[in-house]
């Protein structure tokens, strides 16, 4: 077994309605310390987790959206978002939060972590990962 595994966190659920989105994010944050090859996948209702502009004050729950933005600081550079999932929901990349990382190999230039991929590419990303954590 190699020392580094390709981790893929699959997110298919909307935020707030259930705790799946929040507690999945907590795993990602903890997991970042383990120096594995980490990628996040957002498809189906999971793409709603990245829609910007949350205001949770009236609902009375913690706004955990800033934690997604901070994922770059945890060296998470690959955030795959499925195009078809966005489109059927009337969403485009402009509706999503910004997620960036600093590219070590390019003089620490700030780059977007979000990669819009087709359904077919998403399926291939799943196949190419070593372990899949599905929440």
């Amino acid at each position, binding site marked *: 077994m190699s020392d580094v595994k390709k981790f893929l966190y699959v997110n298919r*659920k*909307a*935020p*707030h*309605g259930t705790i799946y989105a929040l507690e999945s994010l907590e795993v990602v944050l903890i997991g970042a310390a383990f120096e594995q090859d980490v990628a996040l996948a957002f498809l*189906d*209702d999971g793409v*709603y987790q990245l*829609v*910007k*502009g*949350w*205001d*949770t*004050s*009236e*609902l*009375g*729950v913690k*706004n955990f959206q800033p934690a997604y933005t901070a994922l770059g600081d945890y060296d998470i550079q690959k955030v795959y978002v499925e195009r078809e999932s966005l489109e*059927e*929901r*009337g*969403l485009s990349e402009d*509706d999503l939060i910004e997620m960036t990382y600093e590219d070590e190999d390019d003089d620490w230039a700030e780059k977007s972590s979000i990669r819009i991929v087709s359904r077919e590419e998403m399926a291939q990303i799943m196949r190419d990962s070593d372990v899949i954590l599905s929440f």
Partner: protein
Amino acid sequence: MGMLHTVNKSPYQCNTLESCLNHVGEGDVVLLIEDGVYAAMKGGRAADVLSAVQGVKVCVLSADVKARGLEGKLIDGVEVVDYAGFVDLVTETDKTQAWL
């Protein structure tokens, strides 16, 4: 006074909204709460379904709309209500059915 129907699931994940709309009657109110509010987002496939509904008032719960970043992104014709408005809908209608 019609009935109040609450729908709390995303129409992209569950058939709850569809089933609800198949059973509403003239004068009823459908209130989208929790993940149900996604149905009212402009440009989504579910919005077409919702727009086509006749004779039924459609409301969305503001707290859930705001928490999900959907403020200002809703289709025309849906009324945004706060929790106080939710209470009014319950008391102003005959009874409430939760489409769980």
